[in-house]
């Protein structure tokens, strides 16, 4: 375990050195992602000029909703920083046979493949998310209890775990198919579902969609559960969601691990 952590630090250090070598590029990346995010925030502000609440009686008024958005920013920035760059590079590694070199090393391949790149510029969004969360929570009518603050980071981790499992499944598909661009678009569409409160999925087709995204691909639990714990009163139904999120996180990790190992056993290795 300690060894894995120190290997991860070595990777992170190498990426930092690289980022600092190409400093201008690094700054540009930070600015791009910050710009994209502020446009999103401006859009939400605009929405709240027309309605006081997203869905009547849901409790998602302006400040709680921004706490929700902040939670989403934090979780996504962690995933974007730690896992996405490695996963994107995996496509290239499978295509060129660079994966061969990874498989001969005495190290868990899943660890190496999902962590060998860290994109520090993505943390910029997370920092803004933390700031936004502070602002939103301080202006909310409801004050989160201590239990909520204790649960919050833990549930963030569960959310990250669910998204990580999804990345790993997509990586497994890359290994099996040999090449995989559309599946990263798929990633984008799927995570889109996690961006809004679950309450908006209602009605004849919203309900089944909500069930699908909660129990089959638990993408709706990623942001919703931690955000709800911090932004809305912690009562009855919320506890059920907490347990669901924890169970979903564990199950996703296990299933993704099995799928990934199966894919590695079937790896074809590009001819050279």
């Amino acid at each position, binding site marked *: 375990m300690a060894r894995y952590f*120190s290997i991860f630090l070595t990777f992170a250090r190498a990426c930092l050195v690289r980022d600092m070598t190409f400093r201008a590029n690094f700054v540009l990346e930070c600015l791009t992602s910050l710009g994209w995010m502020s446009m999103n925030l401006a859009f939400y502000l605009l929405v709240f000029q027309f309605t006081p609440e997203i869905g009547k009686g849901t409790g998602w008024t302006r400040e709680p909703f921004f706490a929700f958005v902040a939670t989403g920013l934090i979780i996504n920035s962690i995933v974007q920083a730690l896992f996405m760059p490695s996963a994107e590079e995996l496509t290239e590694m499978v295509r060129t046979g660079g994966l061969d070199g990874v498989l*001969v090393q005495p190290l868990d391949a899943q660890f190496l493949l999902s962590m060998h790149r860290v994109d520090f510029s993505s943390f910029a969004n997370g920092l803004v998310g933390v700031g936004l969360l502070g602002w939103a929570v301080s202006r909310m009518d409801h004050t989160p209890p201590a239990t909520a603050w204790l649960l919050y980071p833990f549930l963030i981790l569960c959310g990250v775990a669910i998204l990580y499992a999804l990345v790993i499944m997509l990586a497994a598909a890359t290994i099996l198919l040999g090449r995989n661009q559309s599946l990263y678009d798929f990633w984008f569409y799927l995570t889109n579902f996690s961006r809004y409160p679950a309450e908006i999925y209602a009605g004849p087709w919203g309900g089944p969609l909500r069930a699908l995204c909660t129990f089959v691909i638990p993408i709706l639990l990623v942001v919703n559960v931690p955000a709800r714990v911090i932004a809305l009163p912690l009562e009855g139904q919320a506890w059920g969601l907490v347990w669901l999120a924890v169970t979903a996180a564990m199950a996703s990790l296990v299933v993704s691990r099995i799928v990934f190992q199966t894919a590695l056993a079937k*790896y074809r*290795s590009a001819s050279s």
Partner: protein
Amino acid sequence: MHNSSGDARTVAAVIEVEDLAKSYRVFDKPEGLAASVKSLFHRPSRTVEALKGVSLTVGRGEFVALLGPNGAGKTTFLKLLSGIITPTRGTARVLGHVPWERADDFRRRFALVMGQKNQLWWDLPAAESFRLHREIYRIEPGRFERTRDELVDLLGVRKLVLQPVRDLSLGERMKLELVAALLHEPEVLFLDEPTIGLDVVAQHALHQFLAHIQVERRMTIVLTTHYMKDVAALCHRAIVITDGSILYDGSLDQIVDRFTTHKIVTLDLDGTPTAADFAHLGFPCEVRGPRVTLRIDRQRIADVLPEILRGRQVRDVSVEDVPLEEIVAALFRSGAAGAARAPAEARA
């Protein structure tokens, strides 16, 4: 740690391979739109047999060359032995492990270097990759530094370790790749065309290095290459693979004995000889200026040579074996001819 004492002559099997085969299902991409649409519903596929049942044993400390034309299955064989891919059939044990189970204990004890692939971090100095290597292989720091310095000095690349890898020449990078691969002092080393694209000087440096390190560490090495110079300089044993099967497995000297029936006699004569002067001997003969080249049966060389020399003003004479390249090329061709007779690919 393994037991390295005992009689040097006892050849413990480090690699044991039995009937190892690998086939790939490949899908043909049809040309044209209509055919492409049709292929959405039925994709035509066929099976490529990259390796067709190979059996062999390699003992500790052997240096084996794997020869064969393009597409023969050499790289596939090394990938199987490294556990990168799983076979379709057959068994293999390397250092007592089944490679494709990818046990850490196995992976700590071997290394694979592929000439066409880059393992080092591209944007960073090789020293950084070495550091990572130390952590992955859990090399004790003192030992790591000693090994690294020794390897770097042997290859004369000490100055390059701190330079970003992307700024290095191909040959320089290859040397650093080798250093990285050897840092954990592997017992078995697989080399896939390590000298590809290198100039003669770099090739020579690499040969010297490999020869030295192999003897010193009693390493078992399997090397694939297209350069006979590599083989002649390093290996005693050669395995020729064509079309997925072993065609020859034995010593290099015996390749010459077994597959050549003649030797090449070259004479430098005074005056201007013609082919007609040698026609009565009944051997193929080539004349270029004062130089005459004859291909003479090995058995008859002792009888024929005096006859040739008698009564001639000879400035120089040499008797040589047919060049290795030529023999191996003939072997490759005979393998290809054999393959043409057998159905090479099964339609699916």
